[in-house]
């Protein structure tokens, strides 16, 4: 049987037969069903996914009429930052120019202003500078301008921050101390997020993008949800996109709740419900790649977990399809063949997917 080139989750090409690709699709679906306790994709959906990943073209696309909105994480930092900005292009250009590149050259529907140090905590001393940058950019840019930032509550732990690391306490068996440290960081992170996001909303940005929410665990997620709730109360004109760090919220604290729901252990469907209650306007669900599996396996798992999210959402869903998530390989320059297959299959299989 003829072999087909297929990307693995680490970015390297292997060759598989069509039946091997189909087996990977079935296994990926089953993994999602087991872990997230969601229904499987239908037979037709699995066959369609297999057909997409069995194609030999370098680039695949959708039919006209099925297009979705594109939003971004890290935005301008991808152009202006170097290695500290995450595989950035290190172009010596201003951020307004970077936004205009997204608008006029990349045909993007939205663009994101971001600082090189892409977390809320480091921005506290320089909020004014970010506000001026936004005000300048908003005069020139036509497409919606988001301001992106990560809660990244890990920055609040010593030596970078003032609090003890809950993980250190857990390894010592001091669970009460771990929980207390996490609760302190929720308060600190929440205040900082409201301050920064409120300031950028005052500057006029169209949306605040809370990126990689939950990266530090359940306390990171709760701090962000509370921040959104307060932000919307203080600034009715504020809009929020919230993108997760992973498909699963890690229970570092284990007992933190939001709106009566324990957040530890939440998969995307339950994440959606608490986000809708908090007032999030666009949800970016994430399913992380498994690098030792093929992109076909990963996309089958991804779409199975996210199909009920797209079906039940009352807010737009912008599925995260980026480096290391959404069946895009974990490599600094994601291959076009993998990205286009992930984009096409997500749009054609997920019901009413609103964006990427």
């Amino acid at each position, binding site marked *: 049987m003829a072999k087909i080139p297929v990307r693995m989750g680490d970015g390297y090409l292997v060759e598989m037969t069509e039946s091997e690709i189909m087996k990977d699709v079935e296994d990926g679906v089953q993994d999602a069903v087991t872990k997230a306790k969601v229904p499987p994709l239908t037979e037709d959906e699995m066959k369609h996914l297999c057909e997409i990943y069995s194609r030999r073209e370098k680039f695949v696309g959708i039919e006209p*009429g099925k297009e979705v909105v594109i939003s971004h994480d890290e935005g301008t930092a991808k152009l202006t930052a170097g290695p500290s900005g995450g595989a950035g292009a290190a172009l010596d250009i201003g951020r307004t120019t970077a936004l205009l590149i997204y608008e006029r050259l990349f045909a993007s529907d939205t663009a994101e202003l971001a600082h090189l140090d892409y977390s809320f905590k480091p921005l506290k001393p320089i909020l004014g500078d970010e506000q001026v940058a936004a005000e300048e950019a908003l005069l020139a840019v036509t497409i919606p301008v988001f301001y992106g930032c990560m809660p990244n509550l890990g920055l609040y732990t010593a030596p970078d921050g003032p609090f003890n690391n809950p993980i250190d306490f857990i390894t010592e068996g001091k669970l009460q101390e771990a929980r207390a440290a996490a609760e302190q960081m929720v308060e600190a992170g929440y205040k900082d997020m409201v301050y920064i996001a409120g300031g950028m*909303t005052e500057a006029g940005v169209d949306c605040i993008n809370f990126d990689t929410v939950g990266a530090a665990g359940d306390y990171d997620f709760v701090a962000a949800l509370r921040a959104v709730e307060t932000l919307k109360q203080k600034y009715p004109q504020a809009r929020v996109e919230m993108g997760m760090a992973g498909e699963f919220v890690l229970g570092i604290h284990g007992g933190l709740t939001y709106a009566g729901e324990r957040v530890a252990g939440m998969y995307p469907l339950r994440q959606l419900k608490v986000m809708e209650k908090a007032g999030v306007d666009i949800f970016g669900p994430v399913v992380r790649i498994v690098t030792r599996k093929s992109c076909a396996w990963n996309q089958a798992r991804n779409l199975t977990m996210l199909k009920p999210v797209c079906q039940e959402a009352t807010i737009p869903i912008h599925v995260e399809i980026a480096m290391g998530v959404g069946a895009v390989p974990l490599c600094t320059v994601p291959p076009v063949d993998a990205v286009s297959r992930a984009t096409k299959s997500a749009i054609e299989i997920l019901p009413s997917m609103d964006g990427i």
Partner: protein
Amino acid sequence: MAITHAIAGGMGGIRAAGDLVARMQLSRHMRINQAKEYVANKLHVSVKDLCDPVIMGQVRDELKLGLIEQKPGRTRGMEAKFHIAEVLGIEINSVNKFKAKAGLSAI
């Protein structure tokens, strides 16, 4: 990767109507089909025309919504967003801020 997404499945930004549909998602929580129908109605085009850069180029030029190609006298940036807010019937944060700071409104 941004370019790959845009070409594989994006709406085309200001080449077409992608930014307008995005604004309806943000301002009114519209899901994709609802947002496309809303924008198409407001622009008096069909939904399938929304991603056609030839048709949308003419529409955007006529309604002063901003285009890729820069020419003297064409609206861009804040000027275009004033028209976008009016045509779509939505509030745009930066437009309202501009009006307030320029003394164009009582906000």
